[in-house]
Protein backbone atom coordinates (compact mmCIF):
# COMPACT_ATOMS: atom_id res chain seq x y z
CA UNK A 1 0.00 0.00 0.00
CA UNK A 2 1.39 3.39 -0.91
CA UNK A 3 2.14 5.92 1.80
CA UNK A 4 0.35 9.24 1.80
CA UNK A 5 2.10 12.52 1.60
CA UNK A 6 5.51 11.65 0.21
CA UNK A 7 4.70 13.13 -3.17
CA UNK A 8 4.48 16.76 -4.16
CA UNK A 9 3.32 16.04 -7.70
CA UNK A 10 0.89 17.96 -9.83
CA UNK A 11 -2.03 16.01 -8.42
CA UNK A 12 -1.88 17.32 -4.87
CA UNK A 13 -5.48 17.82 -3.74
CA UNK A 14 -6.77 21.31 -3.25
CA UNK A 15 -8.29 20.60 0.16
CA UNK A 16 -12.05 20.64 0.08
CA UNK A 17 -12.90 21.99 -3.40
CA UNK A 18 -15.96 20.10 -4.62
CA UNK A 19 -15.47 18.01 -7.76
CA UNK A 20 -18.95 17.90 -9.18
CA UNK A 21 -19.35 21.44 -10.45
CA UNK A 22 -19.34 22.72 -14.02
CA UNK A 23 -17.96 20.25 -16.56
CA UNK A 24 -17.55 17.41 -14.06
CA UNK A 25 -21.16 17.77 -12.97
CA UNK A 26 -22.31 17.72 -16.59
CA UNK A 27 -20.21 14.63 -17.22
CA UNK A 28 -21.80 12.89 -14.24
CA UNK A 29 -25.29 13.91 -15.36
CA UNK A 30 -24.62 12.33 -18.76
CA UNK A 31 -23.44 9.14 -17.02
CA UNK A 32 -26.54 9.00 -14.84
CA UNK A 33 -28.75 8.93 -17.94
CA UNK A 34 -27.21 5.63 -19.01
CA UNK A 35 -28.22 3.62 -15.95
CA UNK A 36 -31.53 2.93 -14.23
CA UNK A 37 -30.04 3.63 -10.77
CA UNK A 38 -27.76 6.35 -9.38
CA UNK A 39 -25.71 3.69 -7.60
CA UNK A 40 -24.56 2.33 -10.97
CA UNK A 41 -22.81 5.63 -11.61
CA UNK A 42 -20.48 4.97 -8.68
CA UNK A 43 -17.50 3.56 -10.58
CA UNK A 44 -17.77 6.23 -13.29
CA UNK A 45 -18.11 8.97 -10.63
CA UNK A 46 -14.97 7.74 -8.89
CA UNK A 47 -13.13 7.82 -12.21
CA UNK A 48 -14.25 11.43 -12.73
CA UNK A 49 -12.87 12.29 -9.29
CA UNK A 50 -9.55 10.57 -9.88
CA UNK A 51 -9.10 12.12 -13.33
CA UNK A 52 -9.51 15.58 -11.83
CA UNK A 53 -7.81 15.23 -8.46
CA UNK A 54 -5.29 12.46 -9.04
CA UNK A 55 -6.69 10.35 -6.21
CA UNK A 56 -9.88 9.65 -4.31
CA UNK A 57 -9.67 11.54 -1.04
CA UNK A 58 -11.94 10.94 1.96
CA UNK A 59 -13.57 14.29 1.16
CA UNK A 60 -14.24 13.21 -2.42
CA UNK A 61 -15.75 9.92 -1.20
CA UNK A 62 -18.12 11.92 0.98
CA UNK A 63 -19.05 14.12 -1.97
CA UNK A 64 -19.67 11.13 -4.24
CA UNK A 65 -21.83 9.56 -1.53
CA UNK A 66 -23.80 12.78 -1.26
CA UNK A 67 -24.45 13.25 -4.99
CA UNK A 68 -25.39 9.60 -5.57
CA UNK A 69 -27.46 9.20 -2.41
CA UNK A 70 -25.21 6.52 -0.89
CA UNK A 71 -23.54 6.33 2.51
CA UNK A 72 -19.87 7.24 2.86
CA UNK A 73 -19.15 3.82 4.33
CA UNK A 74 -20.69 2.17 1.27
CA UNK A 75 -18.59 4.28 -1.11
CA UNK A 76 -15.45 3.51 0.85
CA UNK A 77 -16.29 -0.19 0.72
CA UNK A 78 -16.41 -0.02 -3.06
CA UNK A 79 -13.30 2.15 -3.43
CA UNK A 80 -11.24 -0.30 -1.39
CA UNK A 81 -12.35 -3.27 -3.49
CA UNK A 82 -10.77 -1.98 -6.70
CA UNK A 83 -7.02 -1.58 -7.04
CA UNK A 84 -7.01 1.33 -9.48
CA UNK A 85 -8.54 3.96 -7.24
CA UNK A 86 -5.76 5.69 -5.33
CA UNK A 87 -6.60 6.17 -1.71
CA UNK A 88 -3.51 8.32 -1.23
CA UNK A 89 -1.87 10.91 -3.45
CA UNK A 90 0.59 9.40 -5.91
CA UNK A 91 3.47 10.78 -7.96
CA UNK A 92 2.93 12.88 -11.08
CA UNK A 93 3.38 9.67 -13.08
CA UNK A 94 1.98 6.36 -12.00
CA UNK A 95 3.63 3.25 -13.46
CA UNK A 96 2.14 -0.23 -13.24
CA UNK A 97 4.44 -3.10 -14.20
CA UNK A 98 3.08 -6.55 -14.87
CA UNK A 99 4.91 -9.25 -12.93
CA UNK A 100 2.52 -12.18 -13.40
CA UNK A 101 4.02 -15.49 -14.59
CA UNK A 102 3.98 -15.00 -18.39
CA UNK A 103 5.81 -11.69 -17.97
CA UNK A 104 7.94 -13.04 -15.18
CA UNK A 105 9.14 -15.72 -17.64
CA UNK A 106 10.25 -12.90 -19.92
CA UNK A 107 12.21 -10.83 -17.40
CA UNK A 108 9.64 -8.65 -15.61
CA UNK A 109 11.67 -8.70 -12.40
CA UNK A 110 14.54 -6.97 -14.16
CA UNK A 111 12.15 -4.32 -15.47
CA UNK A 112 10.89 -3.68 -11.94
CA UNK A 113 14.41 -3.24 -10.58
CA UNK A 114 15.37 -0.95 -13.46
CA UNK A 115 12.24 1.15 -13.00
CA UNK A 116 12.85 1.63 -9.29
CA UNK A 117 16.41 2.65 -10.02
CA UNK A 118 15.60 5.03 -12.86
CA UNK A 119 12.75 6.75 -11.02
CA UNK A 120 14.45 6.96 -7.66
CA UNK A 121 11.60 5.16 -5.92
CA UNK A 122 12.86 3.29 -2.87
CA UNK A 123 10.33 0.53 -3.12
CA UNK A 124 7.10 -0.52 -4.77
CA UNK A 125 4.18 1.73 -3.95
CA UNK A 126 6.31 4.58 -2.67
CA UNK A 127 6.60 7.91 -4.40
CA UNK A 128 10.02 9.14 -5.50
CA UNK A 129 11.52 12.03 -3.45
CA UNK A 130 11.03 14.43 -6.38
CA UNK A 131 7.33 13.54 -6.44
CA UNK A 132 7.50 12.51 -10.10
CA UNK A 133 6.94 8.77 -9.86
CA UNK A 134 5.05 6.04 -8.11
CA UNK A 135 5.78 2.52 -9.33
CA UNK A 136 3.59 -0.48 -8.48
CA UNK A 137 3.49 -4.12 -9.50
CA UNK A 138 0.32 -5.10 -11.31
CA UNK A 139 -1.20 -8.47 -12.06
CA UNK A 140 -1.60 -9.44 -15.75
CA UNK A 141 -2.29 -6.33 -17.84
CA UNK A 142 -3.76 -8.31 -20.73
CA UNK A 143 -0.76 -7.72 -22.96
CA UNK A 144 1.28 -10.85 -22.18
CA UNK A 145 2.53 -11.20 -25.76
CA UNK A 146 4.28 -7.87 -25.34
CA UNK A 147 6.22 -8.69 -22.19
CA UNK A 148 6.89 -6.70 -20.20
CA UNK A 149 4.08 -4.17 -20.52
CA UNK A 150 4.21 -1.05 -18.34
CA UNK A 151 1.17 1.20 -17.99
CA UNK A 152 2.42 4.74 -17.39
CA UNK A 153 -0.59 6.91 -16.57
CA UNK A 154 -2.84 6.15 -19.59
CA UNK A 155 -0.11 4.92 -21.96
CA UNK A 156 0.53 1.22 -22.27
CA UNK A 157 4.12 0.72 -23.27
CA UNK A 158 4.78 -2.68 -24.79
CA UNK A 159 7.84 -4.90 -24.65
CA UNK A 160 9.76 -2.95 -22.04
CA UNK A 161 13.13 -4.43 -21.06
CA UNK A 162 15.48 -3.51 -18.24
CA UNK A 163 17.66 -1.87 -20.90
CA UNK A 164 14.87 0.26 -22.36
CA UNK A 165 13.70 1.59 -18.98
CA UNK A 166 16.01 4.64 -18.65
CA UNK A 167 14.88 6.05 -22.02
CA UNK A 168 11.26 5.39 -21.11
CA UNK A 169 11.56 7.20 -17.81
CA UNK A 170 13.33 10.12 -19.47
CA UNK A 171 10.31 10.64 -21.75
CA UNK A 172 8.13 11.50 -18.76
CA UNK A 173 9.18 14.57 -16.87
Amino acid at each position, binding site marked *: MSQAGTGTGAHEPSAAAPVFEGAARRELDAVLK*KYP*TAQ*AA*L*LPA*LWIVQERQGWVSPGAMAEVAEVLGLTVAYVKGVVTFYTMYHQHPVGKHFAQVCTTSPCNLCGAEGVVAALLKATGCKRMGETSPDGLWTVVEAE*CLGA*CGFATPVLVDDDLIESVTAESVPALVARYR
Partner: protein
Amino acid sequence: MGYPHPSHPRETVLLSRHFGDAEARGLAGWMTRGGYQALEKALGMSREQVIEEVKASGVRGRGGAGFPAGVKWSFMPKQKTKPHYLCVNADEGEPGTFKDRELLRWTPHALIEGSAICAYAIQAEQVYIYVRGEFTEPIRVLQAALDEAYAKGLLGANVLGRGVRIDMTIHRGAGAYICGEETALMNSIEGKRGNPRIKPPFPAAAGLWGCPTTINNVETLCAIPHILEKGAAWYKGLSLSNPKSSGTKLFSVCGAIAKPGNYEVTMGFPMKDLLYDLAGGIKGGRKLKAVQPGGSSVPFITAEEADGALLDYEGCVAAGTQLGSGGMIVYDDATDIVYQVMRLAQFYAHESCAQCTQCREGTAWTTKILQRMLRGEGRMEDLDLLFDLGEQMTGKTICVLSDSCAAAVVSAIRKFRPDFEAYIRSGRAVAV
Protein backbone atom coordinates in the same frame (compact mmCIF):
# COMPACT_ATOMS: atom_id res chain seq x y z
CA MET B 1 -3.22 -13.29 -38.09
CA GLY B 2 -0.28 -13.84 -35.83
CA TYR B 3 -0.36 -10.23 -34.80
CA PRO B 4 2.09 -8.55 -34.39
CA HIS B 5 3.57 -10.94 -36.98
CA PRO B 6 2.37 -11.27 -40.56
CA SER B 7 -0.32 -13.83 -41.22
CA HIS B 8 0.87 -17.42 -41.53
CA PRO B 9 -0.54 -19.46 -44.45
CA ARG B 10 -1.89 -22.06 -42.04
CA GLU B 11 -3.96 -19.53 -40.14
CA THR B 12 -7.64 -18.98 -40.92
CA VAL B 13 -8.15 -15.30 -40.38
CA LEU B 14 -11.67 -14.08 -39.75
CA LEU B 15 -11.51 -12.09 -36.56
CA SER B 16 -7.90 -11.04 -36.84
CA ARG B 17 -7.82 -10.16 -40.54
CA HIS B 18 -7.58 -6.45 -39.85
CA PHE B 19 -5.27 -6.45 -36.85
CA GLY B 20 -2.68 -3.74 -37.35
CA ASP B 21 -4.76 -2.01 -40.04
CA ALA B 22 -5.52 1.43 -38.59
CA GLU B 23 -8.08 2.22 -41.31
CA ALA B 24 -10.30 -0.64 -40.17
CA ARG B 25 -10.78 1.12 -36.85
CA GLY B 26 -12.80 3.91 -38.38
CA LEU B 27 -16.36 3.48 -39.64
CA ALA B 28 -15.56 4.50 -43.22
CA GLY B 29 -12.72 1.99 -43.43
CA TRP B 30 -14.84 -0.65 -41.75
CA MET B 31 -17.69 -0.16 -44.23
CA THR B 32 -15.38 -0.71 -47.19
CA ARG B 33 -14.34 -3.97 -45.53
CA GLY B 34 -17.90 -5.20 -45.48
CA GLY B 35 -18.94 -3.78 -42.13
CA TYR B 36 -22.51 -3.82 -40.82
CA GLN B 37 -23.91 -5.98 -43.62
CA ALA B 38 -24.56 -8.76 -41.13
CA LEU B 39 -26.50 -6.39 -38.87
CA GLU B 40 -28.57 -5.28 -41.83
CA LYS B 41 -29.27 -8.92 -42.63
CA ALA B 42 -30.07 -9.84 -39.02
CA LEU B 43 -32.58 -7.02 -38.66
CA GLY B 44 -34.38 -8.44 -41.67
CA MET B 45 -34.73 -11.80 -39.93
CA SER B 46 -36.94 -12.68 -36.98
CA ARG B 47 -35.28 -12.79 -33.57
CA GLU B 48 -35.87 -16.56 -33.44
CA GLN B 49 -34.20 -17.03 -36.82
CA VAL B 50 -31.10 -15.18 -35.63
CA ILE B 51 -30.89 -17.31 -32.49
CA GLU B 52 -31.40 -20.50 -34.52
CA GLU B 53 -28.61 -19.53 -36.88
CA VAL B 54 -26.20 -18.88 -34.02
CA LYS B 55 -27.26 -22.14 -32.37
CA ALA B 56 -26.72 -24.07 -35.60
CA SER B 57 -23.24 -22.58 -36.03
CA GLY B 58 -22.18 -24.30 -32.83
CA VAL B 59 -20.14 -21.25 -31.73
CA ARG B 60 -19.20 -21.62 -28.08
CA GLY B 61 -18.26 -18.98 -25.55
CA ARG B 62 -14.69 -17.80 -25.94
CA GLY B 63 -14.43 -16.35 -22.44
CA GLY B 64 -13.35 -19.63 -20.93
CA ALA B 65 -16.35 -21.82 -20.15
CA GLY B 66 -17.24 -22.72 -23.74
CA PHE B 67 -21.01 -22.62 -23.37
CA PRO B 68 -22.85 -22.61 -26.74
CA ALA B 69 -23.76 -18.99 -27.44
CA GLY B 70 -27.02 -19.61 -29.31
CA VAL B 71 -28.29 -21.86 -26.52
CA LYS B 72 -27.45 -19.15 -23.97
CA TRP B 73 -29.39 -16.58 -26.01
CA SER B 74 -32.37 -18.92 -26.26
CA PHE B 75 -32.68 -18.93 -22.45
CA MET B 76 -33.80 -15.29 -22.53
CA PRO B 77 -37.57 -14.91 -22.01
CA LYS B 78 -39.54 -14.57 -25.26
CA GLN B 79 -42.20 -12.49 -23.53
CA LYS B 80 -40.57 -9.33 -22.36
CA THR B 81 -41.94 -8.15 -19.03
CA LYS B 82 -38.86 -6.28 -17.79
CA PRO B 83 -35.91 -4.63 -19.51
CA HIS B 84 -33.46 -7.10 -21.07
CA TYR B 85 -29.72 -6.45 -21.00
CA LEU B 86 -26.61 -7.60 -22.81
CA CYS B 87 -23.26 -7.42 -21.04
CA VAL B 88 -20.11 -7.64 -23.10
CA ASN B 89 -17.25 -9.13 -21.14
CA ALA B 90 -14.14 -7.14 -22.06
CA ASP B 91 -12.52 -7.54 -18.67
CA GLU B 92 -9.77 -9.77 -20.10
CA GLY B 93 -7.58 -10.48 -17.11
CA GLU B 94 -6.79 -14.17 -17.32
CA PRO B 95 -2.98 -14.41 -17.27
CA GLY B 96 -1.75 -15.43 -20.70
CA THR B 97 -4.73 -13.98 -22.55
CA PHE B 98 -4.45 -10.87 -24.71
CA LYS B 99 -6.80 -11.45 -27.63
CA ASP B 100 -9.73 -9.26 -26.62
CA ARG B 101 -7.36 -6.32 -26.31
CA GLU B 102 -6.46 -6.65 -30.00
CA LEU B 103 -10.09 -7.14 -31.04
CA LEU B 104 -11.03 -3.98 -29.14
CA ARG B 105 -8.21 -1.86 -30.46
CA TRP B 106 -8.25 -2.97 -34.09
CA THR B 107 -11.80 -4.04 -34.87
CA PRO B 108 -14.11 -2.15 -32.51
CA HIS B 109 -16.87 -2.09 -35.11
CA ALA B 110 -16.86 -5.89 -35.33
CA LEU B 111 -17.66 -5.99 -31.63
CA ILE B 112 -20.32 -3.30 -31.94
CA GLU B 113 -21.94 -5.14 -34.84
CA GLY B 114 -21.87 -8.53 -33.13
CA SER B 115 -23.24 -7.01 -29.94
CA ALA B 116 -26.01 -5.21 -31.81
CA ILE B 117 -27.05 -8.47 -33.49
CA CYS B 118 -27.15 -10.19 -30.11
CA ALA B 119 -29.05 -7.30 -28.51
CA TYR B 120 -31.65 -7.50 -31.28
CA ALA B 121 -32.00 -11.27 -30.89
CA ILE B 122 -32.48 -11.17 -27.12
CA GLN B 123 -34.58 -7.97 -27.11
CA ALA B 124 -32.04 -5.91 -25.17
CA GLU B 125 -32.22 -2.16 -25.66
CA GLN B 126 -29.22 -1.50 -23.48
CA VAL B 127 -25.77 -3.04 -23.86
CA TYR B 128 -23.02 -2.48 -21.30
CA ILE B 129 -19.50 -3.17 -22.47
CA TYR B 130 -17.45 -3.84 -19.36
CA VAL B 131 -13.83 -3.03 -20.22
CA ARG B 132 -11.08 -3.54 -17.67
CA GLY B 133 -9.79 -0.25 -16.28
CA GLU B 134 -6.24 -0.80 -17.48
CA PHE B 135 -7.35 -0.96 -21.14
CA THR B 136 -6.96 2.77 -21.68
CA GLU B 137 -6.19 2.65 -25.39
CA PRO B 138 -8.88 0.06 -26.23
CA ILE B 139 -11.41 2.22 -24.36
CA ARG B 140 -10.44 5.29 -26.40
CA VAL B 141 -10.70 3.38 -29.68
CA LEU B 142 -13.99 1.73 -28.77
CA GLN B 143 -15.55 4.99 -27.57
CA ALA B 144 -14.60 6.68 -30.85
CA ALA B 145 -16.20 3.80 -32.75
CA LEU B 146 -19.37 4.00 -30.66
CA ASP B 147 -19.61 7.74 -31.32
CA GLU B 148 -19.32 7.10 -35.06
CA ALA B 149 -21.91 4.33 -34.93
CA TYR B 150 -24.37 6.62 -33.13
CA ALA B 151 -23.73 9.43 -35.60
CA LYS B 152 -24.54 7.10 -38.51
CA GLY B 153 -27.70 5.68 -36.93
CA LEU B 154 -26.20 2.23 -36.41
CA LEU B 155 -27.00 2.61 -32.74
CA GLY B 156 -29.59 4.60 -30.83
CA ALA B 157 -33.36 4.88 -30.97
CA ASN B 158 -33.85 3.68 -34.52
CA VAL B 159 -31.08 1.34 -35.64
CA LEU B 160 -30.72 1.41 -39.45
CA GLY B 161 -34.21 2.91 -39.63
CA ARG B 162 -35.78 -0.40 -38.54
CA GLY B 163 -37.45 0.94 -35.41
CA VAL B 164 -35.18 -1.07 -33.11
CA ARG B 165 -33.56 0.67 -30.15
CA ILE B 166 -30.04 -0.33 -29.10
CA ASP B 167 -27.88 1.76 -26.79
CA MET B 168 -24.30 0.83 -25.94
CA THR B 169 -22.32 2.13 -23.01
CA ILE B 170 -18.76 1.44 -21.95
CA HIS B 171 -18.49 0.66 -18.26
CA ARG B 172 -14.89 1.01 -17.17
CA GLY B 173 -13.63 -1.45 -14.56
CA ALA B 174 -11.15 -0.37 -11.92
CA GLY B 175 -8.71 -3.21 -11.36
CA ALA B 176 -10.13 -6.55 -10.22
CA TYR B 177 -9.67 -9.85 -12.08
CA ILE B 178 -12.74 -11.27 -10.39
CA CYS B 179 -14.96 -8.79 -12.23
CA GLY B 180 -14.45 -10.99 -15.31
CA GLU B 181 -16.67 -13.55 -13.59
CA GLU B 182 -20.08 -12.86 -15.04
CA THR B 183 -22.08 -12.14 -11.91
CA ALA B 184 -19.26 -10.16 -10.27
CA LEU B 185 -19.22 -8.11 -13.46
CA MET B 186 -22.91 -7.39 -13.09
CA ASN B 187 -22.44 -6.30 -9.48
CA SER B 188 -19.64 -4.03 -10.62
CA ILE B 189 -21.92 -2.40 -13.21
CA GLU B 190 -24.52 -1.89 -10.50
CA GLY B 191 -21.96 0.08 -8.49
CA LYS B 192 -21.07 -2.63 -6.01
CA ARG B 193 -18.00 -4.52 -4.90
CA GLY B 194 -17.23 -7.20 -7.48
CA ASN B 195 -18.41 -10.21 -5.52
CA PRO B 196 -19.76 -13.12 -7.57
CA ARG B 197 -23.38 -14.06 -6.92
CA ILE B 198 -24.76 -17.45 -6.04
CA LYS B 199 -26.24 -19.25 -9.07
CA PRO B 200 -29.03 -20.02 -9.68
CA PRO B 201 -30.67 -17.75 -10.56
CA PHE B 202 -28.70 -17.58 -13.79
CA PRO B 203 -28.36 -14.22 -15.55
CA ALA B 204 -30.96 -15.09 -18.21
CA ALA B 205 -33.53 -15.22 -15.40
CA ALA B 206 -32.13 -12.55 -13.09
CA GLY B 207 -29.00 -10.66 -14.08
CA LEU B 208 -28.46 -6.90 -14.02
CA TRP B 209 -30.91 -5.32 -11.55
CA GLY B 210 -32.71 -8.65 -11.42
CA CYS B 211 -33.63 -8.43 -15.11
CA PRO B 212 -32.99 -11.04 -17.83
CA THR B 213 -29.38 -10.60 -18.98
CA THR B 214 -27.06 -12.29 -21.45
CA ILE B 215 -23.32 -12.03 -21.11
CA ASN B 216 -20.77 -12.91 -23.76
CA ASN B 217 -17.08 -12.53 -24.29
CA VAL B 218 -15.69 -10.07 -26.86
CA GLU B 219 -14.37 -12.81 -29.15
CA THR B 220 -17.67 -14.70 -29.09
CA LEU B 221 -19.54 -11.59 -30.22
CA CYS B 222 -16.97 -10.70 -32.87
CA ALA B 223 -17.64 -14.07 -34.52
CA ILE B 224 -21.38 -13.40 -34.84
CA PRO B 225 -21.31 -11.12 -37.92
CA HIS B 226 -19.32 -13.77 -39.82
CA ILE B 227 -21.88 -16.42 -38.92
CA LEU B 228 -24.81 -14.28 -39.98
CA GLU B 229 -23.15 -13.30 -43.22
CA LYS B 230 -21.79 -16.63 -44.41
CA GLY B 231 -24.14 -18.99 -42.63
CA ALA B 232 -24.06 -21.47 -39.80
CA ALA B 233 -23.10 -24.43 -42.00
CA TRP B 234 -20.04 -22.63 -43.32
CA TYR B 235 -18.91 -21.71 -39.81
CA LYS B 236 -19.41 -25.21 -38.54
CA GLY B 237 -17.51 -26.59 -41.51
CA LEU B 238 -14.38 -24.69 -40.53
CA SER B 239 -13.59 -27.14 -37.78
CA LEU B 240 -10.82 -29.61 -38.50
CA SER B 241 -11.82 -31.98 -35.80
CA ASN B 242 -15.20 -32.68 -34.37
CA PRO B 243 -18.63 -31.14 -34.65
CA LYS B 244 -18.72 -29.97 -31.03
CA SER B 245 -16.01 -27.35 -31.53
CA SER B 246 -16.66 -25.14 -34.52
CA GLY B 247 -15.21 -22.06 -36.14
CA THR B 248 -11.90 -20.34 -35.55
CA LYS B 249 -10.23 -19.43 -32.28
CA LEU B 250 -7.66 -16.85 -31.37
CA PHE B 251 -4.76 -18.24 -29.37
CA SER B 252 -2.63 -15.78 -27.46
CA VAL B 253 0.74 -17.47 -27.25
CA CYS B 254 3.16 -16.06 -24.67
CA GLY B 255 5.92 -16.86 -22.22
CA ALA B 256 8.93 -18.82 -23.47
CA ILE B 257 8.03 -18.67 -27.16
CA ALA B 258 9.99 -17.24 -30.09
CA LYS B 259 7.13 -15.27 -31.66
CA PRO B 260 4.53 -14.36 -29.05
CA GLY B 261 1.30 -13.15 -30.57
CA ASN B 262 -2.30 -13.90 -31.43
CA TYR B 263 -2.78 -16.74 -33.90
CA GLU B 264 -6.15 -17.55 -35.38
CA VAL B 265 -6.66 -21.16 -36.37
CA THR B 266 -9.61 -23.44 -36.94
CA MET B 267 -10.73 -25.58 -34.03
CA GLY B 268 -8.87 -28.86 -33.98
CA PHE B 269 -5.55 -27.39 -35.08
CA PRO B 270 -2.59 -29.38 -33.67
CA MET B 271 -1.05 -27.68 -30.65
CA LYS B 272 2.41 -28.72 -31.74
CA ASP B 273 2.04 -27.01 -35.11
CA LEU B 274 0.80 -23.82 -33.48
CA LEU B 275 3.79 -23.74 -31.15
CA TYR B 276 6.47 -24.71 -33.64
CA ASP B 277 5.26 -23.73 -37.14
CA LEU B 278 3.31 -20.59 -36.38
CA ALA B 279 4.83 -19.24 -33.19
CA GLY B 280 8.40 -20.09 -34.12
CA GLY B 281 9.11 -22.68 -31.44
CA ILE B 282 10.54 -22.27 -27.98
CA LYS B 283 12.48 -19.10 -27.29
CA GLY B 284 16.24 -19.33 -27.62
CA GLY B 285 16.03 -22.81 -29.14
CA ARG B 286 15.32 -24.30 -25.73
CA LYS B 287 13.06 -27.26 -25.05
CA LEU B 288 9.42 -27.19 -24.06
CA LYS B 289 8.70 -28.12 -20.47
CA ALA B 290 5.02 -27.36 -19.95
CA VAL B 291 2.02 -25.55 -21.41
CA GLN B 292 -1.17 -24.09 -20.01
CA PRO B 293 -3.21 -23.79 -23.22
CA GLY B 294 -6.17 -21.88 -21.84
CA GLY B 295 -4.78 -19.28 -19.48
CA SER B 296 -3.36 -19.71 -16.01
CA SER B 297 -6.58 -21.30 -14.73
CA VAL B 298 -6.28 -24.57 -16.65
CA PRO B 299 -4.13 -27.59 -15.71
CA PHE B 300 -0.51 -27.76 -16.81
CA ILE B 301 0.38 -30.38 -19.40
CA THR B 302 3.82 -31.73 -20.21
CA ALA B 303 5.68 -31.40 -23.50
CA GLU B 304 4.72 -34.98 -24.40
CA GLU B 305 1.06 -34.32 -23.73
CA ALA B 306 1.22 -31.10 -25.74
CA ASP B 307 2.76 -33.01 -28.65
CA GLY B 308 -0.37 -34.91 -29.56
CA ALA B 309 -2.99 -32.43 -28.40
CA LEU B 310 -5.62 -30.95 -30.69
CA LEU B 311 -6.76 -27.41 -30.02
CA ASP B 312 -10.46 -27.65 -29.43
CA TYR B 313 -12.61 -28.07 -26.35
CA GLU B 314 -12.61 -31.86 -26.47
CA GLY B 315 -9.01 -32.19 -27.61
CA CYS B 316 -7.73 -30.20 -24.66
CA VAL B 317 -9.78 -32.26 -22.23
CA ALA B 318 -8.39 -35.43 -23.79
CA ALA B 319 -4.89 -34.05 -23.21
CA GLY B 320 -5.69 -33.51 -19.54
CA THR B 321 -6.36 -29.79 -19.63
CA GLN B 322 -8.88 -27.27 -20.98
CA LEU B 323 -9.14 -24.86 -23.87
CA GLY B 324 -10.18 -22.05 -21.50
CA SER B 325 -9.63 -18.60 -22.94
CA GLY B 326 -7.00 -19.73 -25.44
CA GLY B 327 -4.26 -17.86 -23.59
CA MET B 328 -1.40 -20.26 -24.11
CA ILE B 329 1.41 -19.95 -21.59
CA VAL B 330 4.61 -21.68 -22.66
CA TYR B 331 7.22 -22.78 -20.10
CA ASP B 332 10.67 -23.88 -21.29
CA ASP B 333 13.08 -26.32 -19.67
CA ALA B 334 14.89 -23.51 -17.86
CA THR B 335 11.71 -22.57 -16.00
CA ASP B 336 11.64 -22.89 -12.24
CA ILE B 337 8.18 -24.40 -12.20
CA VAL B 338 7.90 -24.21 -8.41
CA TYR B 339 8.51 -20.48 -8.50
CA GLN B 340 6.07 -19.93 -11.38
CA VAL B 341 3.37 -21.95 -9.66
CA MET B 342 3.88 -19.90 -6.49
CA ARG B 343 3.58 -16.74 -8.57
CA LEU B 344 0.28 -17.99 -10.03
CA ALA B 345 -1.05 -18.92 -6.58
CA GLN B 346 -0.08 -15.43 -5.46
CA PHE B 347 -2.12 -14.04 -8.34
CA TYR B 348 -5.22 -15.92 -7.19
CA ALA B 349 -4.65 -14.95 -3.56
CA HIS B 350 -4.39 -11.30 -4.61
CA GLU B 351 -7.50 -11.51 -6.78
CA SER B 352 -9.76 -13.55 -4.47
CA CYS B 353 -12.78 -11.46 -3.55
CA ALA B 354 -12.55 -13.15 -0.14
CA GLN B 355 -16.25 -14.01 0.15
CA CYS B 356 -15.71 -17.77 0.42
CA THR B 357 -13.47 -19.18 3.14
CA GLN B 358 -12.08 -21.99 0.98
CA CYS B 359 -10.89 -19.46 -1.61
CA ARG B 360 -9.71 -16.68 0.70
CA GLU B 361 -7.77 -19.04 2.98
CA GLY B 362 -6.92 -21.66 0.38
CA THR B 363 -5.26 -19.33 -2.10
CA ALA B 364 -3.35 -17.56 0.70
CA TRP B 365 -2.12 -20.77 2.34
CA THR B 366 -1.21 -22.36 -0.97
CA THR B 367 0.96 -19.32 -1.67
CA LYS B 368 2.56 -19.40 1.78
CA ILE B 369 3.37 -23.11 1.60
CA LEU B 370 4.96 -22.69 -1.84
CA GLN B 371 6.94 -19.68 -0.62
CA ARG B 372 8.19 -21.68 2.34
CA MET B 373 9.35 -24.36 -0.10
CA LEU B 374 11.15 -21.76 -2.17
CA ARG B 375 12.88 -20.44 0.97
CA GLY B 376 14.36 -23.91 1.47
CA GLU B 377 12.08 -24.74 4.38
CA GLY B 378 9.73 -27.15 2.63
CA ARG B 379 8.70 -30.52 4.04
CA MET B 380 7.68 -33.61 2.09
CA GLU B 381 4.27 -33.51 3.80
CA ASP B 382 3.72 -30.12 2.18
CA LEU B 383 2.94 -31.81 -1.12
CA ASP B 384 0.11 -33.80 0.44
CA LEU B 385 -1.00 -30.69 2.25
CA LEU B 386 -1.22 -28.87 -1.09
CA PHE B 387 -3.25 -31.73 -2.60
CA ASP B 388 -5.54 -31.65 0.40
CA LEU B 389 -5.97 -27.88 0.13
CA GLY B 390 -6.63 -28.29 -3.57
CA GLU B 391 -9.44 -30.66 -2.81
CA GLN B 392 -10.97 -28.28 -0.30
CA MET B 393 -10.74 -25.49 -2.84
CA THR B 394 -12.54 -27.37 -5.61
CA GLY B 395 -16.29 -27.36 -6.16
CA LYS B 396 -17.09 -25.67 -2.88
CA THR B 397 -17.22 -21.96 -3.60
CA ILE B 398 -19.54 -19.43 -5.25
CA CYS B 399 -17.33 -19.06 -8.34
CA VAL B 400 -14.44 -21.08 -9.75
CA LEU B 401 -11.53 -18.74 -8.96
CA SER B 402 -10.58 -21.06 -6.14
CA ASP B 403 -10.88 -24.15 -8.35
CA SER B 404 -8.65 -22.47 -10.93
CA CYS B 405 -5.87 -21.91 -8.44
CA ALA B 406 -6.13 -25.51 -7.28
CA ALA B 407 -6.13 -26.85 -10.85
CA ALA B 408 -2.89 -25.08 -11.68
CA VAL B 409 -1.11 -26.06 -8.46
CA VAL B 410 -2.27 -29.66 -8.25
CA SER B 411 -1.56 -30.38 -11.92
CA ALA B 412 1.92 -28.87 -11.61
CA ILE B 413 2.78 -31.07 -8.66
CA ARG B 414 1.38 -34.16 -10.42
CA LYS B 415 3.31 -33.48 -13.60
CA PHE B 416 6.52 -32.08 -12.14
CA ARG B 417 6.79 -33.64 -8.71
CA PRO B 418 10.59 -34.08 -8.90
CA ASP B 419 10.97 -30.29 -9.21
CA PHE B 420 9.08 -29.79 -5.96
CA GLU B 421 10.88 -32.62 -4.20
CA ALA B 422 14.24 -31.23 -5.27
CA TYR B 423 13.49 -27.99 -3.43
CA ILE B 424 12.43 -29.87 -0.35
CA ARG B 425 15.39 -32.29 -0.34
CA SER B 426 18.12 -29.80 -1.11
CA GLY B 427 16.88 -26.94 1.01
CA ARG B 428 17.89 -24.68 -1.85
CA ALA B 429 16.49 -21.18 -1.39
CA VAL B 430 15.53 -18.49 -3.88
CA ALA B 431 14.31 -14.97 -3.27
CA VAL B 432 10.52 -14.81 -2.98
